[in-house]
């Protein structure tokens, strides 16, 4: 089945220790997104790619970076995680259509010790 895969599902890191979360998709969608979600709140968009075109949200901290080496893969790098970065990180994809719905991965729950 076509899907969005996130690895790992659970990630524990130490305060200040860099961490990378990965996302892959078999849907061949142009657009990929990274969201941060805390405590059942609305997902907060960090950035998105349209093909290789990177779009950063104005309020996304510099501590968060992303890479998309090809259509299928996208990575979220947190350079120096703080306690406030503990959250669920969701990857999503969509077709490049105005009304295209998003397809979400299962998420990676990040714990910062």
């Amino acid at each position, binding site marked *: 089945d076509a899907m969005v895969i996130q690895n790992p599902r659970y990630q524990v890191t130490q305060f200040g220790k860099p961490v990378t979360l990965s996302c892959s998709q078999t849907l061949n969608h142009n657009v990929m997104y990274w969201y941060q979600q805390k405590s*059942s709140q*609305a997902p907060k968009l960090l950035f*998105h790619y349209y093909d290789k075109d990177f779009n950063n949200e104005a309020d996304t901290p510099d501590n968060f970076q992303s890479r998309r080496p090809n259509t299928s893969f996208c990575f979220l790098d947190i350079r120096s995680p703080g306690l406030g970065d503990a959250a669920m990180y*969701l990857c999503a994809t969509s077709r490049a259509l105005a009304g295209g719905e998003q397809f*979400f991965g*299962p*998420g990676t729950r990040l714990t910062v010790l």
Partner: protein
Amino acid sequence: AQSVAQPEDQVNVAEGNPLTVKCTYSVSGNPYLFWYVQYPNRGLQFLLKYITGDNLVKGSYGFEAEFNKSQTSFHLKKPSALVSDSALYFCAVRDKGFKTIFGAGTRLFVKA
């Protein structure tokens, strides 16, 4: 800017009864509206969307939503609730480009 509001933090309904989860929106231009569901420790799942056409949109798992332009609402409905429908529901609107704005979410509890 586009926005959606979900006025209820929580909705409680008995199994077998109809359910409604409310959503109102504010958009400039034609609205692209969505409903997503999230189960514990999972990503969001798309339920249905309204782009154009019939005001009553049917989606997954027996859910439907009614687009009401005059009331700027897009309420999610189901004729007969199941315990397994208990989850967190998000209304969303497409913003410029490829961004989507999500509502704060409504937690649905269906009691057996």
